[in-house]
């Protein structure tokens, strides 16, 4: 039994130290377990390679225990030394930090005093020690690798610890994995897992309809709708990890306080930003642009991570109210001019992204109603990056995928993330810099009491919402579909309204259960083959007949 999954995104590398793309890291999760994992049901931390962990009282030293009995796919035992080897490789080799370097920047050292124990010492207390999304590689394979940079990790089958073993990879075509019989949780219920590369989700959706693949995600709303009622196909509308935002240039500055970019100065005024946010009809966007397959945006953490998600209270809530927004702008000292406008703004988005193309039309209209003419520019990915990095925007579309631990998404909005004096080296999202926010960020980073940390994180989101360096527009649903005539069930994460693909884990694939007697719809394919053969036969016959006829009649023609 084979589970065939459509992927639309490229695979950049099979080397887990280099793989950056979501698709590659997802396959990496299937090949290699992490030190810890997240449960499928509620995304809490659970056993990975390690089954026990213990921080020291000063929270600087963490001890992980790798239990006996877990094996690599080639039968070798998995030990603490493999874990230490992996982390130390990343600490010593800058290339090995390409993909997941951020997890180890705060590490002092990593040691394995015995086969079962890993000891990690950090420079400062680190709250995310149980969210180290780093694939652990087998020491006995990787210690022979001379240069990480040029290592494609293509010694098939690739030795791993995850539920599947990589057996074949043909670039641009497909990736084949086999169920790992040595997997410590037990082998998957089917034999092979194939990822088939598709150029666009359109083709993938068609293939799903034809039964050429069993599982598709990242569908556009229209594609999702097109599968409604299709025999043998079950759709899964799940809460996604992504949000889409509208960035408002708050008067971008470098880390040293130098102004950067050319954002409209009016936007420095928080009242203007609030007015703009108030004029955007989030419900309409969700209904018309997302076709309802999204939830209205509020805080930085999507509702799928319920614990960390924040919703404004009744009085905090900014309701869609163009009239109030108009009044606020008048009060802020930006009255309408004779032609009815206040000041023009530019909106930059990505060409080819359906959301940007459509939502910009709505925003154009909404802003028009509060006297702000919008100049919409849809540009290439790179030009969009360039503009947002150099802060040469007024309004811009952006979006992020979030992790279970909110640290990363929160960190994007601290002052320190802004670029240096030369305008380079910034990783800030929206050029936000706020003392209150930064203080809260530092607090949550060393708050090991989860309940308290959740509180702080919510406060941060509230502050962000209040200061509006960006309007969170929507949390998009992850739209997936699968052949329920081939596979009866998949494990979603979280259990309620969760996703099958793009999980924080490998549950979706691992937990797939084949349908009783799966009948592969191969019939039509042979019809096609036969048809092709028939066409060729007819062609040959025609040629033969014509050649004969010509010989017969050529004598009397000229």
């Amino acid at each position, binding site marked *: 039994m084979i589970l065939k999954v459509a992927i639309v995104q490229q695979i950049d590398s099979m*080397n887990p130290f280099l793989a950056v793309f979501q698709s590659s890291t997802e396959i990496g999760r299937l090949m290699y377990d992490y030190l810890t994992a997240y449960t499928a049901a509620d995304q809490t931390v659970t056993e990975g390679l390690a089954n026990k962990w213990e921080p020291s009282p000063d929270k600087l030293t963490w001890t992980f225990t790798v239990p006996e009995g877990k094996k690599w796919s080639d039968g070798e035992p998995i030990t603490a030394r493999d874990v230490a080897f992996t982390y130390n490789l990343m600490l010593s080799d800058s290339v090995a930090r390409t993909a997941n370097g951020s997890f180890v920047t705060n590490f002092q050292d990593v040691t394995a005093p015995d086969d079962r124990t890993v000891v990690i010492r950090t420079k400062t207390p680190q709250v995310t020690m149980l969210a180290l999304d780093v694939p652990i590689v087998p020491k006995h394979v990787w210690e022979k690798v001379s240069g990480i940079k040029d290592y494609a990790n293509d010694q098939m089958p690739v030795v791993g610890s995850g539920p599947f073993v990589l057996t074949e990879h043909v670039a641009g075509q497909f990736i084949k994995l086999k169920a790992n019989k040595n997997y410590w949780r037990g082998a998957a219920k089917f034999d092979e897992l194939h990822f088939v590369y598709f150029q666009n989700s359109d083709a993938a959706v068609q293939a799903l309809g034809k039964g050429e693949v069993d599982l598709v995600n990242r569908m556009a709303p229209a594609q999702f709708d097109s599968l409604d009622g299709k025999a043998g196909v079950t759709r899964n509308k799940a809460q996604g990890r992504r949000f889409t935002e509208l960035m408002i240039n708050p008067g971008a500055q470098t880390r040293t306080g130098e102004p950067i970019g050319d954002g409209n100065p009016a936007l420095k005024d928080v009242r203007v930003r609030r007015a703009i946010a108030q004029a955007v009809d989030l419900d309409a966007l969700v209904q018309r642009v997302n076709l309802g397959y999204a939830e209205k945006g509020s805080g930085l953490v999507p509702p799928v991570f319920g614990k960390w998600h924040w919703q404004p209270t009744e009085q905090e809530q900014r309701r869609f109210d163009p009239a109030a927004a108009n009044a606020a702008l008048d009060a802020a000292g930006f009255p309408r001019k004779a032609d009815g406008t206040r000041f023009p703004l530019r909106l930059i988005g990505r060409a*080819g992204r359906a959301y940007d193309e459509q939502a910009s039309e709505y925003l154009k209209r909404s802003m028009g109603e509060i006297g702000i003419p919008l100049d919409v520019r849809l540009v*290439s990915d790179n030009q969009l*990056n360039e503009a947002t990095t150099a802060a040469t925007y007024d309004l811009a579309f952006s979006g992020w995928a979030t992790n279970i631990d909110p640290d990363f998404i929160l960190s994007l909005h601290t002052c320190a993330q802004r670029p240096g004096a030369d305008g380079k080296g*910034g*990783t800030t999202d929206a050029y936000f810099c706020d003392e209150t926010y930064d203080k809260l960020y530092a607090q949550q980073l060393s708050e090991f009491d989860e309940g308290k940390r959740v509180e702080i994180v919510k406060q941060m989101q509230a502050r962000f919402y209040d200061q509006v360096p960006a309007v969170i527009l929507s949390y998009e649903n992850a739209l997936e579909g699968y052949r329920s005539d081939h596979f009866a069930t998949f494990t979603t994460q979280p259990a309620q309204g969760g996703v099958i693909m793009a999980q924080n884990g490998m549950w979706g694939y691992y937990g797939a259960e084949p349908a009783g007697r799966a009948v592969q719809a191969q019939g039509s394919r042979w019809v*096609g083959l036969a048809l092709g053969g028939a066409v060729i036969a007819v062609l040959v016959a025609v040629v033969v007949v014509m050649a004969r006829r010509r010989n017969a009649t*050529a004598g009397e023609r000229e």
Partner: protein
Amino acid sequence: MRLAGRFGGAALSLVMVAVLGFFLFRVVPGDPVVSMTRGRPTTAAMQAELRAQFGLDRPLPEQFWNYFTSLLQGDLGTSFTFRRPVADVILERLGPTLLLVGTATLIAVGLGLWLGVRAAWRRDSGFDRVTTGVSLTLWAVPTFWLGMLLMMVTGDLFPSRGMRDTDTAPDFVSQALDVGHHLVLPSVTLVAVVCAEYMLVMRSSLLEEMHAPYLTTARAKGLRDDVVRRRHAVPNAVLPAITLVFLRFGLVVAGAITTETVFSWPGLGLLFYDALTGPDYLLLQGLLVVTAGAVVVMNLLADLLHGVLDPRVKVV
């Protein structure tokens, strides 16, 4: 002397291709490292490291010099997307493209030239009108649209994507059948457009020769009409046609990009599209250099071939 000139010209063209490739993709404002690390936890230091790793932190002239010298050694740089040498990435995608383009070109050349000869020989006949009309129409059809249409019309008969299924039996016959099955729609799409052009080229080339006095000579000798055509007219008319076929190789390349994109055929065209959506500049640059270089080389070959086929052209 002339041979040396040909090679010299081709070499010069290749250098121009290389220069063009570099400047076209370095004129761009934009920091590839930013797009490479988008949506990922990164720090400024890591970005700087990547920049150094890809040599993006050096001045432009130095970058060009490095690029050019390594190009001479067959090194096209490292793809931002794939973290691997561009040359390797391109090389592994070469096979499917050669298969598709090769099949389509062979069919298109054969069919196109044959139709063109027949249409020109019986000029203004029903056959001529129909084939010329169809060819002109096909010439007007955007390749990608034809592909999408074929896909919609054929429904479930042919696979919608890729070059082979992952679950086909590993034996050669099954694999070959599978690839052939996948090949049908893309090659039909590509053939339709390319063949139309070849047909028109061949037709006008033969019409050009139709009133050549040597054909009268051949008829006067008592040769049968089809022998006159086969032995005298076609060998003369096919020479300029072949040159044009080679000259239009760019068309095939262009067709391959859109066709591969529509059918997810895992070749260079698809790679081109992928590099485009990145955009992965080094990869794009490499693809431009490789395809343009291939076209230049093809033309050199056509020139040499012409010299062999046509006694009037002295190559050496």
